[in-house]
């Protein structure tokens, strides 16, 4: 396995239930303040906490791209128009040309909420709504196509949909396309929005908590689902002198079970080690790990075992799902950006909502957000189908 050529993070935008833009997420992290709320959501018939982005209700898709209109692409638009991201993309277009900037995005459910609504419409009126557009909303490629059109980019790209690792893997795909000369820079990102399929689906597996989610807590009992979007402009490091860099990726499969992680974290260990090999770093040089930490019994146990095998029990880590909820296909980009903010802001996020640490896990996360300046951090994301991805960011 070859060492990676680091890529610079030259612009980024993040939207989740903590608020719009970097500043809101930084405030939430600094103040140990969750975006999750116990609230009703139309169509939901059980109690849980949700990470909702209310601002979605107040925006509209550009008229010329109206056929892409769905909650997921609205959330994408919200992120694209935040944190001056558009201006950075315009500058990249001038420097590289519109054909030389790729778009690689991850989503687990795309605009399936439109199809859910169409079936509900049919249930009442015997027909689908007139404006139903399967390809431009429900289809997994809808997000990639919308982002490319909205930003006016004509480079390579595709949508990755590997459940909860989707928008972590976009970094690897974009990197490979850049180093093989197929583009000069890339937009990477991910969006997942609330929909009934995932809410009722995770509930069928008894993985949704009625309470606020408590990763790594002895009494943890499941996830809270949140919606989120994030995008990053990734460029060769020479163009982003002094910026945080994307340094390593590791991708693996558990080859074990569709919805339960390998109990000893075998697949996760491969991803973690491969990311360190590509970054030319060893375990002692990873100063913080942003955990997948979903707060299900199985995930946290398997992940803790994998971390213990690589780092021992002294690893500094936390799950930030107590802030944002589990943002599923957007978890990779959300937690990558949180990891980058940790490097830039000299803070290590706390593991919000953990009341009684589960000692059997042996890995103890940081309880509250702590001031510390570090060089290299890792973020882990694991998805259904046993799909694992670890990423390393650093100075």
């Amino acid at each position: 396995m070859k060492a990676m050529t680091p890529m610079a993070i030259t612009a980024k935008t993040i939207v989740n239930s903590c608020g719009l833009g970097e500043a809101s997420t930084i405030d939430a992290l600094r103040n140990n303040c969750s975006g999750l709320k116990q609230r009703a959501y139309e169509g939901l018939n059980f109690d849980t906490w949700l990470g909702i982005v209310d601002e979605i209700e107040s925006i509209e898709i550009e008229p010329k791209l109206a056929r892409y209109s769905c909650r997921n692409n609205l959330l994408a638009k919200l992120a694209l128009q935040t944190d001056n991201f558009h201006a950075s993309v315009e500058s990249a277009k001038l420097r590289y040309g519109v054909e030389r900037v790729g778009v690689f995005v991850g989503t687990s459910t795309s605009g399936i909420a439109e199809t859910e609504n169409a079936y509900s419409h049919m249930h009442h009126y015997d027909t689908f709504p007139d404006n139903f557009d399967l390809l431009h909303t429900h289809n997994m490629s809808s997000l990639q196509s919308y982002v490319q059109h909205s930003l006016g980019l004509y480079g390579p790209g595709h949508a990755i949909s590997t459940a909860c690792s989707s928008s972590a893997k976009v970094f690897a795909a974009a990197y490979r396309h850049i180093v093989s000369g197929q583009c000069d820079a890339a937009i990477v990102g991910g969006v997942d929005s609330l929909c009934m399929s995932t809410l009722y689906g995770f509930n069928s597996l008894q993985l949704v908590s009625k309470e606020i989610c408590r990763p790594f807590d002895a009494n943890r009992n499941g996830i809270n689902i949140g919606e989120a979007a994030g995008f990053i402009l990734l460029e060769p490091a020479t163009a982003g002198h002094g910026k945080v860099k994307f340094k390593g990726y590791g991708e693996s499969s558990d080859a074990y079970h569709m919805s339960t992680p390998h109990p000893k974290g075998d697949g996760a260990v491969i991803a973690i080690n491969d990311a360190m090999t590509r970054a030319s770093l060893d375990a002692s040089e990873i100063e913080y790990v942003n955990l997948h930490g979903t707060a299900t019994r199985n995930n946290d146990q398997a992940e803790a075992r994998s971390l213990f095998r690589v780092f021992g029990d002294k690893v500094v880590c936390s799950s930030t799902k107590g802030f944002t909820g589990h943002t599923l296909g957007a978890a990779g980009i959300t937690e990558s950006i949180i990891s980058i903010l940790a490097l830039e802001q000299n803070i290590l996020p706390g593991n919000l909502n953990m009341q009684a640490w589960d000692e059997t896990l042996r890995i103890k996360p940081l309880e509250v957000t702590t001031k510390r300046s570090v060089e290299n951090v890792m973020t882990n994301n694991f998805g259904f189908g046993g799909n694992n991805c670890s990423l390393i960011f650093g100075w």
Partner: protein
Amino acid sequence: MTVYINDISVIAPGLIDKTITRSILQGEKNWIYQEMPKLIPNMLPANERRRTTPMIRLALACIQGLSSDYNDLQTTSTVFASSDGDFEISDKICSALSNDEKIISPTLFHNSVHNSAAGYWSIASLIKGASTSISAGNATFMSGLQEAVTQVEVDGGTVLYVAYEYPAPSSSPLDRYSHIKYPLAIAIRIGKQAENKALGTLTLEGPENNTKESVCRNPSLEPLRTASPVGHGMPLIVALVRRARMQVIIPYLRDEKFRISISH
């Protein structure tokens, strides 16, 4: 980017038996639509096999058509590509959610991920390498092939590329909106080194505008080529089976195309 094509497999209605498939692809026989038999993914343990859907079985059966001598399970990566994923699952979940009870079964939910076929394949093969599952609408076949070739180019090793589409059930309202007419799966094993039975090399060039996409040399295969985004890969498969030294043009994003040069 140049890589070796070490093995290929294709499955569709009327392309089930390997000998018959070969003669159709070589232009000796015409393709005619035939009902798909029930495909059985033998490599899966029975408890997992029971949970699979026709789309998952199509993808797995297609990979089963490849020789299965993998030297190193850890460094074999997989790229799965499907524009539309599993309509049967979307239909069942959205139907269930439109009822008051809104009951989804755990199996239905874990089969709903776009990487379902990849997940089952890893369980069957015990391959722990990297695995991605992508969608790029009408460009799905070419985008998946581009990603697979790029992985070989950058990360080395062997990449198993599997592209597949399955129509919506005729009873589903989604059938009216879907552009997929026939099931089709194509599997290609590529690598930087030639294996014993290598079919040749493939070089990707592009994307370019103002070129016309290739058609199938055997015109009877045209309905299959135009039946789904994965159908765009048929001229490549035909060229590889015919062992012709030639170029095929395959649609990519927007109106762009990739030029693929094949040598033997």
